[in-house]
């Protein structure tokens, strides 16, 4: 049993505990890329949510008096072959692409964190089984599988199925990283202490291990956003991604691709917005990784 002594020993005045949040905030402000990225992303988000509202046209509404027409006061970004307003389509598509990117990143990072941490913490058979599942998922040609299942993306809320499937094929690499970190964290004193006090394993994982790698997870989730957006664009280009009546940037780009030389506005606006979006997200993710990862200091560019 421990005995509690009443007399408190003389403790030298400790320096104020480092405030991690403040520290991170300072580093982020110093990392210009992150700020620029966030500003662009906020502007794009505003654009995506305000655009369809202020536009006088509906997403699938056709203006038969203006087929494949250039920029005009009526159609700010021009119209496509069937008279649909490119401005409305692009902003609505941007909205969906943003949502898809965020949701996929959220789901897949959560999966990666849980699977990687459990594999690393328990080791042995659990580790073998989970690592093997990750390896199998890496081998499966995800593009083929998403394409086969594409007919389930049709209809109301079908894009949510696409989100889940995209997430199901993008957690593996992060989970391997989480596993490696967990193995090294497992032997730390505070984890041992928690274990000897009888804290159940799943609580140790969620309370002590995962919070300790939160910076890595946040940076990785950001990168995942851009990966998901790019993946969705690729599928939609072949008509295997988001299905009508839903619309995403990939769908708009696919529609416009064949007019890229004859009617550039159909292709240029959605493509430029997509590249800008991915660029902004990558800037944030990359800057975050540098700011949060102490070993990456030398890589600052």
């Amino acid at each position: 049993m421990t005995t509690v002594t009443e007399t408190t020993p003389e403790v030298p005045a400790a320096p104020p505990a480092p405030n991690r949040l403040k520290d991170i905030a300072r580093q982020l402000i110093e990392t210009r890329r992150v700020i620029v990225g966030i500003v662009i992303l906020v502007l794009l988000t505003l654009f995506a949510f305000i655009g369809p509202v202020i536009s006088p046209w509906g997403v699938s509404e056709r203006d038969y008096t203006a087929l494949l027409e250039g920029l005009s006061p009526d159609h700010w970004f021009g119209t496509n072959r069937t008279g649909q307003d490119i401005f409305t389509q692009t902003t609505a598509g941007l909205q969906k692409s943003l949502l898809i990117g965020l949701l996929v990143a959220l789901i897949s990072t959560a999966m990666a964190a849980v699977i990687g941490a459990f594999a690393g913490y328990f080791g042995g058979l659990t580790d073998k089984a989970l690592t093997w599942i990750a390896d199998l998922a890496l081998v499966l040609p995800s593009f083929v599988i998403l394409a086969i299942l594409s007919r389930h993306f049709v209809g109301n809320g079908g894009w949510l199925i696409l989100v889940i499937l995209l997430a199901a094929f993008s957690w593996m690499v992060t989970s391997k990283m989480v596993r490696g970190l967990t193995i090294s964290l497992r032997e730390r004193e505070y984890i041992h202490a928690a274990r000897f006090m009888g804290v159940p394993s799943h609580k140790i994982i969620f309370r002590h291990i995962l919070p300790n790698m939160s910076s890595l997870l946040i940076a990785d989730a950001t990168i995942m956003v851009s990966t998901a957006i790019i993946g969705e664009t690729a599928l939609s280009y072949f008509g295997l991604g988001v299905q009508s009546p839903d619309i995403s940037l990939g769908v708009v780009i696919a529609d416009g691709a064949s007019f890229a030389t004859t009617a550039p506005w159909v292709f240029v606006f959605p493509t430029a917005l997509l590249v800008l979006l991915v660029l902004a997200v990558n800037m944030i993710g990359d800057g975050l990784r540098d700011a949060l990862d102490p070993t990456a200091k030398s890589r600052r560019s």
Partner: protein
Amino acid sequence: MGKFLARRLLNYVVLIFLATSFAYLLAATNLQPRVYFEQMQPPPPPEVVNAQLDSLNLNDQTPLAERYVTWIKGVLTGDFGKNIQGGDVSAQMWMKAGVTLRLITVATILGSALGIAIGAYAAVRQYRAFDKAATGASFFVLSIPTVVIAIVIQVLAVAINDGLGFTLLKYVGEYSAGFQGNAWETLLNRVHHAILPTLVLALALFAAFARYQRNMMLDVLNADFVRTAMAKGLTRRRALFKHALRTALIPTITYFTFTFGALVSGSTFTEKIYGWHGMGAWLIDSISRQDVHVVAAVSWFMAITIMAASFLSDILYAWLDPRVRV
């Protein structure tokens, strides 16, 4: 080392088998070959449709397990079944696989070699103009989907051809239709057609590698062993090549395995956009034709290429890192 590689190889064979089976089962349950026949004009009577489906082992009224066993028995003897038009999948596959492999191999070698060289050099020249240009360029390219790169390069090629008044850059097909000539001219014609699609694939790969290699190189540049190597009398160049680059290549090799899958699916868009009749274009066409056996065969091919890339990186890893060999 032999034992290490043998164990990996066995693991890969099992993974390929599972991946292909999984793809077959998914395709067999989700694609609808029946609809393909029923939509024919004029619509054939149901008995004919059933007979057709039975002869192709595609009938959804046969239990899935039975269809799978028939199919896997064929695959184990090298027969991937018939496509929905009754053609032999295996025979077609080798032709299309050749197209894709030519595209991927050249692009991989070109893209990764350039990427590693430029990334490593950028790290050595950290914060100089070269480093800033290379890092900025690769960052920008990484933010553009392969589809968009492929389309933009095609549009640029059209503009350049129009501007020059003759076809400097070919952007459709693998070779000119009806081209006649000796072996040398045929090769030249093919290379001429391959320039743009290879460029598209290599560009994305180059960006990823340049970025990754720069980071890895920066991590080892200030390491003790590089300083020791120089202290014991090696020139800076030799120390960087023999000690720093060699060590920095090890994580890049692992990274290569992860990017290869993206490259294989990236080749799908490139083939489709540039009119190459490879595996990727075949996959897209067969999904719209509800062609189960072709989809399964393409999955097998993709799994094999990814596994081959992993195996290659295992060998390179063992060569670079002596610790693995024991």
